[in-house]
């Protein structure tokens, strides 16, 4: 398992580097130049291009950028005329506060509801939770955000709340479905049937024994939830015009600001990587079987099984 974890770290690092380089290349090679418009004379344009090293070959610029990024120097943003790093940190914080609140909200509602949907004896409750979840899963964050904006305009909902709720609803539904399915599988285990047969109370079986067993299936999709949240955040930021990472990425891409675009893409990949790793570490700490058994988690294979799971 530790080896697999190391593999995950390597994969995450590769992901960040590839994202960084790809975004840099894409913006650098895209048609349209920074100095094409504006009131500058030809000499000024040439001087500016030389200062920004835009006259050098792209491969050389990429190599320089990567080397500089390794020392945490992300260069200067041409669209904002300020260093990339503080800008990036500032905007990422905006996305992270809403994103993490949404994640917390989704975990706090989705997980208990999933357990409830799986363990309740009332069929109507089970069916009701499942129906609401499927419905919420089907309404993308973009649409939820628009509806909330409409609502917010009349009752004065701040954009932070709009964003958090819009992101949390689909994520909670996703977690609820995963948890319900994992729970239903978990209580089928022989040990739990034995416990129930011996008269262990249903609540104890559910929370003390079955829930930890079911958690690994839920934690395994940390990366999926994280990338859903980031994609959703991008859409919601477009609507609420909250100046977060998504909007910054868009501005960088539209302004052909390759330093900034590269840093934004790298940051998005880094966030997904961190959430995935956090899920793995929690999984490792609660599930002793994983520490003993090393064959379970290959770096890549897991992503497939995870994406298979995301089905209501």
């Amino acid at each position, binding site marked *: 398992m530790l080896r697999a974890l190391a593999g995950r770290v390597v994969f995450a690092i590769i992901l960040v580097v590839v994202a960084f380089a790809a975004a840099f290349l894409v913006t650098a090679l895209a048609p349209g130049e920074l100095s094409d418009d504006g009131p500058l004379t030809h000499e000024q344009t040439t001087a500016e291009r030389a200062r920004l090293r835009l006259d050098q070959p792209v491969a050389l610029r990429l190599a320089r950028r990567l080397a500089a990024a390794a020392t945490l120097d992300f260069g200067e943003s041409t669209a904002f005329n300020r260093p990339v790093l503080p800008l990036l940190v500032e905007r990422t914080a905006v996305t992270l506060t809403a994103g993490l609140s949404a994640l917390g909200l989704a975990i706090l509602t989705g997980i208990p509801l999933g357990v409830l949907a799986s363990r309740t004896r009332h069929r109507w409750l089970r069916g009701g939770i499942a129906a609401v979840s499927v419905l919420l899963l089907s309404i993308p964050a973009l*649409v939820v955000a628009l509806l909330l904006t409409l609502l917010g305009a009349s009752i004065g909902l701040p954009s932070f709340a709009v964003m958090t709720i819009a992101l949390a609803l689909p994520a909670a539904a996703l977690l609820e479905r995963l948890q319900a399915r994992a729970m239903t599988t978990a209580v089928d285990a022989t040990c739990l049937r034995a416990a129930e047969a011996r008269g262990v109370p249903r609540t104890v079986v559910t929370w003390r024994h079955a829930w930890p067993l079911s958690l690994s299936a839920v934690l395994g999709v940390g990366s999926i939830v994280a990338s859903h949240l980031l994609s959703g955040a991008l859409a919601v930021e477009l609507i609420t015009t909250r100046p977060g990472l998504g909007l910054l990425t868009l501005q960088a891409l*539209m302004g052909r600001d390759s330093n900034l675009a590269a840093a934004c893409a790298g940051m998005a990949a880094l966030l997904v990587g961190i959430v995935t790793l956090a899920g793995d570490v929690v999984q490792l700490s609660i599930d002793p079987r994983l520490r003993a058994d090393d064959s379970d988690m290959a770096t890549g294979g897991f992503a497939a099984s995870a994406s298979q799971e995301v089905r209501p």
Partner: protein
Amino acid sequence: MTAGGRASSARTHAWRFSTRAVGIALLAVVLLGVLAAPILSTGQVAVQHPDLALAPPSVHRLQLVERLPPTYRALDERVPLTWLDGVVVRGTHASTPLLPLGGDSLGRDVWTRLLHGGRLSLSLTLAGLAGAVAIGMVAGLLAGSLGGWIDTALMRVADLFIAWPALYVVLLMRAAMPLSLGFRTAFLLMAGVLALAGWPVVARAVRGVAALERTRDHVLAARAAGASSRWIVVRHLLPAVRPVVVTQALLLVPAFVLAEATLSFAGFGFGEPTPSWGTMLREASDAFVLRSAPWLLAPAIGIALVTLGATLASDNDR
């Protein structure tokens, strides 16, 4: 399994079947409506009626009272209608159009734009889907049936794509292209972008099934009997991966519709006056406008219906 267990699984089966049917029916209704757009529409997509900016849906003639916020008075006189004249129904005179879903900020017919916008959004989705399924199946079958380093390499590339937030991938690829494009070029490029973003999901699933199927006895028997690789792929692997491909394609539908909407919303989509669900939603992003004209959210309902339909239809028996 006990008798009770069997009965409950039969019930689950029936429930599954019905949710699938509902999903397919939803998709069918939206598709039919969109296909019948030329007959169902009540006007032209680009014709503007400045006196009817943000006008509410009404069968009565409206008179503008106040421009900000848009306030209308319904006159005691119905809009003269012409039935079954090329289209099902439309306003008889060009100056008094029928607006079944109200007007947008330029006084254009939201209902007509919704139908034609859906046409564009959904055909783009289908085009992207065709590309994603084609690339994904070839890559998945190659990886699954050949194995070895081709398998590893293809799947690592797929993982890199999957691990990234999907909208970022689409946005980045779209940004590499010129910002304003002609309609045909924009359509082809966006379909290509969607296909490139979607293939890894299909490839992963196909590869999983193909790799498993390859080790099954009947395939081994076929190989022992001297069947060629092509025969095995066509006769044994392709039929086995078909259900997986259908499910994955259905799961990609919501993602693609949403990607189109987000790209167009961000200004990377089609230019005015061509309506698509994403470009139409741009108007709905202003809270003030939205409050006085909530019918501008119609495309969002369209997106939600398609998403719900595809999600329900992909709910297969596992």
